[in-house]
């Protein structure tokens, strides 16, 4: 009983804090950036992280096993992973680009997890024999962290693609109401922040060249940032898959079974390996690599949800249809 109350309190705290954070983001989009507001949104992200972690830890204590045995818990962990990604990249001293991706992702995953759709899953699951291993902690947490980081990174790439694509459109509709269009776009992509920052510097330059230069800079930043975040996620993914392979060698009798989930995790790995390779060549960078990352975005969702929806293979736990091996 006390646990249910605690869980309610924690989910509500994290959910409302993150809503406030998103509101702050929207406000900074519309108005001049206020430093305290940005600070408080950072603090809000940290508070969210702690309440989600508190939720997971309390589940761990009350259920007696690592809280990653069903979809609800894995979604909560995923949203925790988003906030971890956010904080890791804050250490790298980035500007505010990533938080426009991580905060909505956190709230969406959390909202989905706590929505009525999955209520029957909020109870504790018993652990089937195959899951009773220390590897559960390592493998599943690494996989979910990698999903979180890779999703963030590929969303950045999607944003890059959208911006580039819109730029191309813009060339066609030259002339009519351009300033208005630019303003709209600026609102859409959170560019106004930089607009405010850089306005003083660019006062002398013409508006058009400013816009192109600014846009170039933004896409570059997105490009670099998504590369960095995807590399991080790729590292986690590698560790996660390999831990899974070692675990499979303990539990199923072979380190690789070509189980559908395994196969799709490997496909994800290959897609992001392709992404990293496209980064090494100048000619393939930019839009091409962003395209690969966007494919990766879809593949992650197939790997995370699609396979479980089909309910095939050995990884049938943690899905919508709850079955035991």
């Amino acid at each position, binding site marked *: 009983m006390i646990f249910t109350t605690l869980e309610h309190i924690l989910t509500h705290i994290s959910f409302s804090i993150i809503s406030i954070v998103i509101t702050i983001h929207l406000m900074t989009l519309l108005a001049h950036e206020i430093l305290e507001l940005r600070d408080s949104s950072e603090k809000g992200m940290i508070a969210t992280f702690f309440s989600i972690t508190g939720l997971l830890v309390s589940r761990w204590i009350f259920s007696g096993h690592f809280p990653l045995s069903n979809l609800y818990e894995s979604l909560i962990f995923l949203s925790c992973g988003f906030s971890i990604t956010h904080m890791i990249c804050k250490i790298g001293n980035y500007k505010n680009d990533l938080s426009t991706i991580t905060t909505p992702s956190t709230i969406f995953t959390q909202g989905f997890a706590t929505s009525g759709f999955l209520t029957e899953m909020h109870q504790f699951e*018993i652990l089937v024999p195959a899951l009773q291993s220390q590897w559960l902690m390592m493998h599943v947490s690494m996989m979910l962290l990698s999903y979180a980081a890779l999703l963030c990174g590929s969303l950045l790439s999607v944003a890059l693609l959208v911006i580039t694509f819109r730029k191309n459109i813009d060339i066609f509709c030259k002339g009519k109401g351009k300033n208005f269009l630019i303003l709209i776009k600026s609102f859409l992509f959170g560019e106004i922040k930089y607009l405010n920052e850089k306005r003083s510097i660019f006062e002398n330059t013409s508006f058009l060249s400013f816009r192109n230069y600014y846009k170039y800079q933004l896409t570059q930043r997105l490009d670099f940032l998504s590369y960095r975040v995807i590399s991080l996620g790729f590292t986690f993914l590698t560790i996660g898959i390999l831990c899974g392979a070692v*675990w499979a060698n303990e539990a199923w009798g*072979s380190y690789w079974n070509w189980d559908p989930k395994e196969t799709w995790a490997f496909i994800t790995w*290959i897609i992001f390996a392709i992404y990293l390779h496209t980064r090494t060549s100048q000619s393939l960078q930019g839009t091409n690599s962003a395209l690969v990352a966007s494919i990766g975005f879809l593949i992650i969702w197939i790997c995370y949800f699609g396979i479980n929806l089909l309910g095939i293979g050995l990884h049938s736990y943690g899905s919508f249809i709850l079955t035991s091996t």
Partner: protein
Amino acid sequence: MSSSLLLNLDKTLFQALSPPLFSISNARIFLPCRRSGVGVVGFKPRASRDGFEAEALPESKTKKKSRSNGGSSKKIIFFGSAPPPLSEERGGGAGNGSGKPAPEGSSWVFLRRAFKRALAVLSNLPLAIGEMFFIAALMALGTVIDQGEAPDYYFQKYPEENPVLGFITWRWVLALGFDHMFTSPVFLGMLILLAASLMACTYTTQIPIVKVARRWSFMQSAETIRKMNFADSLPRASIQDLGIILMGSGYEVFLKGPSLYAFKGMAGRFAPIGVHLAMLLIMTGGTLSAAGSFKGSVTVPQGLNFVIGDVMNPNGFLSFPSESFNTEVHVNRFYMDYYDSGEVSQFYTDLSLFSLDGKELLRKTIRVNDPLRYGGITIYQTDWSFSALQITKNGEGPFNLAMAPLQLNGDKKLFGTILPTGDPDSPNVKGISMLARDLQSIVLYDQEGKFAGVRRPSSKLPIEIDGTRIVIEDAIGSTGLDLKTDPGVPVVYAGFGALMLTTCMSYFSHSQIWALQDGTTVTVGGKTNRAKLEFQDELNRLLDKVPELVAVDQNSNG
């Protein structure tokens, strides 16, 4: 190279640099901050960038002066005695071909040329990317098409009259071996091709890149430094201070005369080679596993035994039986643990290994996730079944009734048996049916099929059905064991370890910084291969820390 000096913090710089560049020893005042707000982002549109840089720098005269000096910078190099350090070891890999003449004649030359050409083709990046895409697509297809079914299944699922997506029929599926995708020649061929590409790329691209990166190259012209991705110039600064500050944040710093070279994160350059080698190691291990392993699976009732060699089947042409196949396995006990809700929490099998002369070698209770390993053989707990029910009927017995698995949809198990009452030879035998989901409780039905009661084997509580008094003495389970030997595992694990380590290391970014002292101006340029944003921020931060020289004595010795 010998004249370049590796800076050490504990060494005093000025001693090391015997002819001092400027008389800086006491003409310097350290200021906490160099100039504020010139965190210039170094992006490509040169015109605009230079535009606002000039705006931001207060002393455009200094800048101009340094520019003009930059043109004649060759004269300012004071220590021209040292040869340009790095161009001597050119072409380690590339020079191979012409290095040794081929006296064996044209066929040898032709082979060599073909080899080189193959290398060039294989190390082509778009080809490698295409291979990876193709493999990913094949794997995706392998999860879409059901694997390992009988041909009839594919005849029905992919009929010729109504092809899936307009062209996929069973002919395609079976001819290309897509019914067993992960062992099909197409897939294995692609993997081999990818392995070849990995090797070729490592040899022709990665190793030369690392060789270049390892050299310490000083830059002698301010122009080339300014053309870097990140470039900035510090008026009234000293390159030694810059060196110390760079060292403080983890850079390896080399200083020779007016030029400085610093790098950090060399591991990030080596790691991709390691990743490729680890992949190759894993592939080798996988091949070894496929070619040299034995597999077997057996269901043994509690109390019985089997010889390992009898149940093992070779997997490939390199599978050779080992000594330890002549070991007998005795199942001492098989039991399950249950949760309070009645679901199985764990399966346990108590196993003893005996040598053929009857000596006990090892005894262990295995469970899921905790296999037994002996002499290269691993025994896994994978399955279970209900072997027999031991009952006494009207005080006679005990009898063993064999339990038969009953087919159910879903993956729940159900076992059943019947105890005949009356004449067992008559055509329509009637009897008492007993059903069980697990070893815990047995459900009994009478001759009419009506529910009679539930008994636990442990309780020894008798039950009366149609005048027959039945006591369920024991439920005998049988354990499902998987056995395997896999010579590839150590190799694969080594590959796993290496891959984890090198992927983590690949996250590091190899950053290089060049700087040139030019009068009182230090021109700094740098590049990095991965963390471009962090690098810019870091360098801006570091450059802000460089103290400004006030009242520099302009009569330098040089």
